[in-house]
C-alpha cells in the first residue's frame, strides 16, 4: 500500500502532460473543451500527431506500435489526454478493430490494416447494433451468404457513430442461421464503405448533431479474405472488442475538465447579488461531485493496478456505470450554471450568450448516450449482480 506514484510514473505523467499540452494543436484542444463538434480533419490531425510520437496505440502489441506500458501508465496516458482536451485516438480504430486484427487477424490482414489503422489513414466504423438488436446484440439479423469467393451481405446496421467519415466498416453478420446457439453463427467481416450496395443515412440527434447513422447493405459483395479469424467465431471477437471498449470509458479526466469549467463559469455569473461560485448550495454540489469523481478515480487506479494479468478486475463494471453517471452529472451541472443562458443554443454568433452556455444544453442532451452505449448501465448492473454477487 503506497500513496505516491513511483518516481518513474511521476516523470511519465509529467512527460505525458507536457506532450499533450504543447504538441497537439491548441485549436483542436479548445474545440474539445468547448464541446464543439470536431471535423474529420481535426480528428485525423490529432491522431497523427500522437501516432508519430508513439502515443496513439500504446496498448497494441509492440511490433504493431504498442509500448508495453504498465496498466497504470496506460491509465495515466488516457487521463492526461482527456484532462488536456486532446481527442482520444479514434476508438473504432485504436480500441476496437485494431486489437481484434492484431489478435485474431491473418498476417496479411495485420500488414494491410494495422499501420493504416494506427495512423487513421483508414477510418473505421462499427457495424454492430441493428434496429432489433441493441443490448441483445446476439439477435442480429444482417446476413452474409457465401457465393464463390465472396460473401454477399444483406441487412441493416444502426447507431454507426461517425460512419459518415468512415472508409471501412467492421461488421457482425450472421453466416450460419441454423446454428443451435445463435452466438455461434456470427462472423466478423471487413469491407470498404464505398462498396456497391452500401448506403448510409445520417440520424440527427437531440443536440442537432449528426454523429450516428443507419447503414444499409443490399447484395454487398465482400471478398472471402476479408473475414477476420474463423467463420462463425465472430461473437468471440465481438466480446473481446467490447471488453476493450469498456476500458477508459469512465472518462474521469474529461469529467474533471468539466468541473473545472463549471467552477470557472460560476465565478462569472451573479446570483442573488454574489457570484454563483459563492453560493453554498452550488459549492456543496461541486464538492459532492468532486468527491464522487475522486472515489471513481481511486477505483480506476485500484482496477488498473490489479488487472495486470489480463483479467479485468471485477470492479471494472463500476467504472462504466459510475463513470457515465458522473459525466452526465457534470453536463447537467453546466446547464444549471448557464441557467437561462442555456436556452439559446444555435445563435450562429449573433448573440452575447457565451459559447459554453450555448452548447451546455445540447451537450447535456447528447450525453444521455453515455449510460446507453458501451453496454448500457442496466447491462453493467446485470454483470455486477451475476458475475460478482452470484445472483
Amino acid at each position: 500500500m503506497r500513496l505516491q506514484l513511483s518516481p518513474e510514473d511521476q516523470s511519465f505523467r509529467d512527460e505525458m502532460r507536457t506532450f499533450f499540452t504543447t504538441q497537439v494543436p491548441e485549436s483542436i484542444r479548445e474545440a474539445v473543451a468547448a464541446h464543439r463538434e470536431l471535423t474529420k480533419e481535426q480528428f485525423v490531425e490529432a491522431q497523427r500527431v500522437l501516432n508519430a510520437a508513439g502515443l496513439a496505440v500504446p496498448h497494441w502489441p509492440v511490433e504493431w506500435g504498442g509500448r508495453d506500458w504498465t496498466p497504470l501508465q496506460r491509465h495515466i496516458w488516457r487521463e492526461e489526454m482527456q484532462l488536456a482536451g486532446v481527442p482520444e485516438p479514434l476508438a473504432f480504430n485504436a480500441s476496437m478493430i485494431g486489437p481484434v486484427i492484431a489478435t485474431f487477424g491473418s498476417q496479411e490482414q495485420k500488414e494491410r490494416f494495422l499501420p493504416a489503422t494506427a495512423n487513421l489513414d483508414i477510418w473505421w466504423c462499427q457495424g454492430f447494433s441493428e434496429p432489433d438488436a441493441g443490448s441483445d446484440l446476439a439477435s442480429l439479423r444482417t446476413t452474409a451468404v457465401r457465393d464463390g469467393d465472396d460473401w454477399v451481405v444483406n441487412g441493416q446496421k444502426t447507431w454507426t457513430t461517425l460512419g459518415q467519415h468512415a472508409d471501412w466498416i467492421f461488421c457482425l453478420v450472421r453466416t450460419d442461421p441454423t446454428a443451435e446457439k445463435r452466438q455461434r453463427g456470427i462472423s466478423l467481416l471487413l469491407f470498404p464503405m464505398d462498396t456497391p450496395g452500401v448506403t448510409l443515412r445520417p440520424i440527427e440527434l437531440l443536440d442537432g448533431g449528426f454523429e450516428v447513422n443507419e447503414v444499409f447493405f443490399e447484395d454487398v459483395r465482400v471478398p472471402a479474405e476479408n473475414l477476420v479469424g474463423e467463420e462463425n467465431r465472430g461473437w468471440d471477437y465481438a466480446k473481446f472488442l467490447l471488453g476493450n471498449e469498456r476500458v477508459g470509458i469512465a472518462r474521469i479526466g474529461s469529467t474533471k475538465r468539466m468541473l473545472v469549467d463549471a467552477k470557472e463559469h460560476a465565478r462569472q455569473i451573479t446570483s442573488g447579488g454574489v457570484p454563483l461560485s459563492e453560493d453554498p448550495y452550488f459549492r456543496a454540489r461541486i464538492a459532492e461531485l468532486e468527491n464522487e469523481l475522486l472515489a471513481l478515480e481511486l477505483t480506476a487506479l485500484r482496477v488498473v493496478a490489479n488487472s495486470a494479468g489480463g483479467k479485468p478486475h471485477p470492479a471494472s463494471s463500476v467504472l462504466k456505470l459510475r463513470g457515465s453517471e458522473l459525466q452526465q452529472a457534470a453536463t447537467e451541472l453546466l446547464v444549471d450554471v448557464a441557467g437561462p443562458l442555456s436556452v439559446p443554443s444555435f445563435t450562429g454568433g449573433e448573440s452575447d450568450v457565451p459559447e459554453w452556455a450555448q452548447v451546455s444544453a445540447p451537450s447535456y442532451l447528447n450525453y444521455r448516450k453515455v449510460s446507453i452505449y458501451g453496454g448500457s448501465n442496466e447491462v453493467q448492473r446485470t454483470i455486477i449482480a451475476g458475475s460478482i454477487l452470484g445472483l
Partner: protein
Amino acid sequence: MEFSYDDEQNGLREAVSGLLARAYSDSEQRRRVVATDPGFDEKTWSRLAEMGLLGLPFAEADGGMGAGPVEVSIVAEEIGRVLAPEPFVEAVVLAGGLVSDLGSDAQRAEVLGALAEGTLLPAFAHAEVGTRWEPSARAVTATEDGGSWTLTGVKEPVPNGARADLLVVSAVVAPAGAPGATRLFLVQGDAAGLTRTGHRNHDGSRSARVEFAGTPAQPLGEATGDQSAAIEKAQARARVAYGHEALGAMETALTTTAEYLKTRKQFGVPLSKFQALTFRAADMYVSLELARSTVMWATLVVDADGDVVAAADRARLQVSRAGRHIGKEAIQLHGGIGVTAEYSVGHYTSRLTALDHLLGDGDWALARLAGTVGEHETVDPLRS
C-alpha cells in the same frame, strides 16, 4: 500508487479474522455479549491484547508494536465485518491516539503500555449535549489552583464512559476575560467528584453521561496552548479507521443480502429471479467499492502524513452515503426479518448508523469540503 497488501498484512488480517470468527461465529453470540455490561467481551479484549492489536499503532518505546495506519485499518475492517463490539477504534485509535500524540513520556509509557496489555481501557470524553462534532470544548471547564487542576461540567455521550479506567477529557481553560483554549486532561476512573451514568445504545455499544464536579485532573502533555487542532487530527484518523470498520460492516451486509436473495423463495422462485431486487444489490456493490477506494486512499494519506483532516472528510462523506445506502437497502431487500433483532442484518444497519454519527456525518463533511472548492482547480489523489 499501490493498493495491495503485503504478506505480513494479509497474515495479520487472517489472524484477526480467525480470532473474531471464533468469538462471534454467529450473531447470537454477539447479542448475548452486548446484552450485559460493559457491552463487549472482556476475554476477547484480552485476546486482542495478547495478539498485540491494542498496542498496534504505538511506538515500541511506549509498549506498542510500532505498526502503521494500514495495519490499524485491517483490524478495524475485521471488527466491522463481524460487528465485534470491542471498542478498538474508540480506545486504541482515538483515546490512545491522543495520549500517543500529546502525552508526556511518563504518560505515554503508563497509559499506552497498560492499554496494549489490555489492563487499562481509556475513553475520550469530548462530546457535549448541544454542540456537534466540534474540535473544541465548552461545557467542561478546567481550573488551576496551586499547580493542580480540577474539572467541572458534563460530557455526553462518552463512548464506554462508564467502563473506562481512564478518561481523556477535553475542557476549556478560561482565564477571566479571555477566550477559552481547549486542553486535554487525564481523569482516573475512580477520581473524586466523578459521576458516571452508563447506558446502552441502539447499536449495542455503551456510552455514558459523565459529570465532573471539581474532579482532579492531570493535563495531558506539557504544552500549554490550545489543543483543538490536535483533537481535530486525532478525530480525523479515527474517522478513517471508522471508515474501515464501516467497510467491513457494509461488506457483510451486502453478502448477507445477496445470500438471502439466492435462498429465499417467493412466488415459487428465489428472490434472485427478480431484477428489481438484483439491480438494487448491484448498486449496493457500487457504493461499497467506491467507498472502499476512498477509505483506502485516506489511510494512505494518514500513512504519508498528508492533509489528514481533508482526506478524512472525503472518506467520511463517501462512507456516510454508502453506509446509509447499503444499510437501508440490506433491510429492505430482506423484508420484515431485516427489522428484527433476532436476525443479523439489521444490527449492521444499526452500527452503520452509529458510525455515521459519532464523529461527523456526510452532510457535515460535505459542508466543510464545500468551503474549500474554490481553493483548488481539481482534486488530485496522487498529489495529496
